[in-house]
């Protein structure tokens, strides 16, 4: 099954290359290629998810091949740089999330009519990068794909964005570029300190390992992680490096101002990919690298992580309350929800981590749905400004209804995916930080406040004459709405569809880090 993961990345790339050879005028053909190039990987992702073994806790579907080798300063033997892919209970759901959101974003952006060829080229590269970042089982591969998303997203914003797109794109590039550099420092530090510690241990390894001990392969590192005890100071230092990278990458307060600009200036499909998937990579990386390999760092700075999370929860929610633009509101709402994930990670509990993964998936689906419906209404009303809308339930009953479902999902209504995520992660966080968690629950009230307040001003109220003749959802718009709502309800009502996959892995991590 290992090849499946490779195909997830390869097919969108091939499709992107294929678009380059198509005439720019044949827009339908390009759209078709893009659609096929995203649907096939999604089907593979579904197959991988369905065949995912629930009883093993480590990596599955491992694929790895040496790409090139370089000399390294650590030892005489050359270091093999690999393309390595594998999934475990944490990355598998996120890989499938990429699959779901990517197809829907491609469909949504059929509406884009300018420079279609370039648009889908970058979008397909972005999608490949997203798959690659989540499916990577090798630090180099991870970083490579992370950079691919950075570049692709930059062009998507800079070319197809709104009036202030240049500004927003540059801001995006600077922030995330800087985050990447910090992340890279963390990854290199982790690889070297891991290797030197491994060399220092005299145990006879039960697993085959690279002779020079230096590896970037997560599967190899995972196989010996039980034998490697990095010094506490190293763990702490590296943890802070990763934490800084993630704070910028995930737009946590105070490194958050780029996200609202990004969302405000991007087109709807790109926003679905950014808000739905791209904004989950940072926290995923925190779990994947920092939590897994630097447990003592988490021990030491867990409280800091949780406090930063709570700050973002409350700050994001309060600013969302004052936001006048739907896209900015969603951006701040997303910051607030990602703060919950940070709080859960800080808790070091298996249940907290499970809730964190649930929240990443749930927030991804709901944010994508929210951006989709907000974009769909703006296609009609020509505005995202909350104060200019009103009474849309009458001309747009279906879109308004779906928007309400998305809003209630973000509010954490049971029966939708948001609740089970919030509940699970709060059980984890209360176990370690009861007082802090109580403060964080204020965010639950504020979420209801800003979302229902905005809904009241958007869909409720008397119909405005200028919106009287608007046409409700078209057939093609039903696809993203139905798919996303179905998944959100499915996870909300039968959470074991997600829980069975996540559970084993988080239990294993928590057992090792002593949560």
């Amino acid at each position: 099954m290992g090849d499946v993961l490779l195909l997830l990345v390869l097919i969108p790339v091939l499709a992107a290359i294929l678009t380059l050879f198509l005439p720019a005028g044949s827009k339908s053909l390009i759209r078709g290629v893009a659609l096929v190039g995203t649907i096939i990987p999604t089907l593979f992702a579904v197959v991988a998810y369905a065949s995912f073994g629930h009883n093993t806790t480590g990596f599955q579907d491992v694929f790895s091949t040496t790409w090139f080798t370089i000399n390294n300063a650590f030892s005489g033997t050359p270091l093999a740089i690999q393309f390595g892919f594998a999934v475990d209970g944490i990355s598998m759901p996120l890989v499938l999330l990429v699959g779901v959101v990517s197809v829907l974003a491609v469909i949504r952006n059929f509406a884009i009519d300018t420079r279609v060829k370039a648009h889908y080229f970058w979008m397909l590269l972005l999608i490949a990068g997203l798959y690659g970042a989540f499916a990577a089982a090798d630090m180099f591969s991870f970083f490579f794909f992370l950079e691919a998303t950075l570049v692709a997203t930059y062009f998507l914003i800079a070319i197809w964005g709104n009036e202030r797109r240049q500004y927003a794109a540059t801001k995006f590039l600077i922030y995330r570029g800087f985050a990447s550099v910090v992340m890279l420092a963390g990854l290199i530090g982790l690889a070297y300190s891991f290797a030197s510690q491994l060399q220092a241990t005299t145990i006879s390894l039960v697993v085959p390992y690279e002779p020079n001990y230096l590896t970037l392969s997560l599967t190899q590192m995972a196989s010996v992680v039980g034998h490697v005890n990095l010094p506490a100071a190293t763990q702490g230092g590296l943890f802070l490096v990763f934490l800084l990278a993630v704070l910028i990458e995930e737009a946590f307060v105070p490194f958050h101002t780029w996200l609202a600009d990004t969302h405000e200036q991007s087109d709807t499909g790109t926003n679905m990919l950014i808000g739905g998937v791209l904004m989950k990579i940072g926290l995923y990386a925190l779990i994947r690298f920092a939590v897994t390999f630097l447990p003592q760092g988490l021990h030491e700075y867990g409280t800091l992580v949780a406090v930063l999370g709570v700050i973002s929860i409350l700050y994001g929610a309060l600013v969302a309350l004052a936001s006048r633009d739907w896209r900015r509101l969603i951006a701040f709402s997303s910051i607030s929800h990602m703060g919950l994930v940070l709080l859960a990670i800080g808790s070091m509990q298996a249940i907290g981590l499970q809730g964190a993964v649930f929240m990443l998936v749930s927030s991804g689906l709901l944010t994508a749905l929210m951006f989709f419906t907000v974009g769909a209404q703006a296609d009609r009303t020509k505005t995202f400004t909350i104060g200019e809308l009103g009474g849309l339930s009458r001309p747009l009953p279906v879109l308004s209804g779906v928007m309400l479902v998305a809003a209630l999902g973000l509010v954490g209504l049971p029966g939708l995916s948001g609740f089970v995520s919030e509940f699970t992660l709060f059980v984890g966080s209360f176990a370690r930080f009861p007082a802090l968690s109580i403060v964080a629950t204020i965010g639950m009230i504020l979420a209801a406040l800003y979302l229902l307040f905005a809904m009241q001003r958007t869909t409720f109220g008397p119909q405005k004459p200028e919106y009287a003749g608007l046409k409700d959802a078209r057939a093609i718009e039903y696809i993203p709405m139905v798919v996303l709502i179905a998944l959100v309800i499915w996870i909300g009502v039968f959470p074991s569809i997600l829980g069975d996959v996540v559970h084993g892995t988080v239990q294993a991590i928590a057992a090792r880090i002593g949560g």
Partner: protein
Amino acid sequence: MTQLAWLVPVLPLAAYVLLLIAGRRISEASITGLSVIAVLISFIVSLFVMGDVAVHGQSPAVVYNWLPFGLHPITMGFQVTSLNALMLVVVSLVSTLVLLFSRSYMHGDDRFSRFYQYLNLFVFSMLGLVISPNLLQFYIFWELVGVCSYLLVGFWYFKPEAAAAAKKAFIVTRIGDVGLFIGIILIYLASGTFNFQDLFSSSTLAPVGSWFAVHGLAGFTHVPVFGMSAPGFVTLVALLVFVGAVGKSAQFPLHVWLPDAMEGPTPVSALIHAATMVAAGVYLVARTFPLFGASPAASETVAIIGGITALLAATIGLTQRDIKRVIAYSTISQLGYMMIGLGVGAYVSGMFHLMTHAFFKALLFLAAGSIIHAVDTQDLREMGGLRKLMPITHITFLAGALALAGIPPFAGFWSKDAILSAAFSSGHYVLWAMGLLAAFFTAFYIFRVYILAFGGTYKGKKHPHEGGVAMTLPLIVLAILATLAGFINAPFSPWLSRFLQQTQTIGIDPAANWGLMALSAVIGLLGIWLAFYVYGKEGRAQRLADRMGFLYQLSYHKFYFDEIYNVVIVLPIHYLGELLQFIDRWIIDGIVRLLGEAGYASGFSLKYSNTGQVQTYGLVTLLGVVIVAAVLLGIGGVL
């Protein structure tokens, strides 16, 4: 039969799904028929379930795995206890009648089918709440009834008042819900389970120790009780659970949402905001009664909040001019009585009053709905003279009013007096006195409504007449129940008391005190007399209001709760949001932009996106990054 109890909520759910699929294509009559029959069958099944429980006793929970969760998966399922069975019957019965009533009330609304969808969804959620075997499932349905309430209060979404009221209802109850949410999590962390059965198994009212008998199930190495003593922790948890009940049951100080919720269609007010959902808070306290039994401080709090609410709301009810608002304040007040009952330990009396109140309050609301339907206004000053014009509505409303006023032998008399007796006999004399005073006000305000609506001559311009049989039949059935339901637990035939306590005694159930009962009956009659005195002659009411001056204003303006909350809570939050927004824009992002400007000035910028050859640039950038990464790795020794 208890094994089939799952059918009770599932039937309305099926009706909801059917209407969701086919609702637009079938007639109003079919929509009503489908819904009424589904819920009627639910009611019949509930009756059988209740009979089964009465004969064979309670049955253990039936559960299925729901979510892997730490060492023990979370389960979901259903459970039938005496308490659940009683609630199933009450909820499904009132629901059936309201669904029938809505046929005429909502006739012609262009979202008729949607209305029935929401109502069915609500009935499903409420019944699901009732038979939940664990706290988490309870909470899930608890939120679902809340969202149904939101949807139904805001059903006429184009009315700005309705939109505002729906949001207010959701957010205010959400504050309570968060308390409950925290309480449930703390209970889980301390005990390792959500299941009522496991939480309260050893002995229902045993001392605190039994709470921790189950501790350790979850494998947590420490008990996160904030370093509190076990009794302190139990009190904290009980109070958190009660916060949830305060929100849902519109108790002081979170009562402000319920009167506004009257913006919803009247059948909704009858079903959700009188008979069922708002009683869920009371039901929650009853369901977790051992928790309150283990904490005297928490129980006292319940009783005191109940007492304050009962009196406060009754006082406000005296002066309101909107017929639905009077009845809404009456609901808040009556829920306060139930809380007094549970707080002083009178478990059976509290539930008894919940049941009788469901009947007579649904009746009063539906009768009010019948009036509003006929006269097209909710303002009491534009009614009058309906006694002759709407005889069935008149006689049924009168039955409800007498039940509410606590006049024997109507249902409310028996249940309210059971609560007041329990308060008295348990030594809560102040609460008893507050309850008695509230009873006096109650009798006054409901007969004020009765006189203004039915007495004198009609002041409006329409030609009021009774609605169809779909309207009058539910009124008649409820009127019979409001008249007779009290005998299910009258002092001489305490069937309900035996039913609810068939396995063990729960709380206190003091013997009837005939002296107290006579006293409160007299108080009720006095209130009625005063109403007739004041409103019997033109001008007396106005003079009384003038003489009361400040007190009248206080009552009429609902003690200014909304205004105070607005100034103390709502506005500060919004201002804080605006302030942070400002700081965000001009200070945090301002610094960022300043740095950016500095960057541009020194020529160090990243603005290379203006050319046409974007793809080329992209590839170059990508390649560049890869090379940088590779080189960094190669010379990684620098780290």
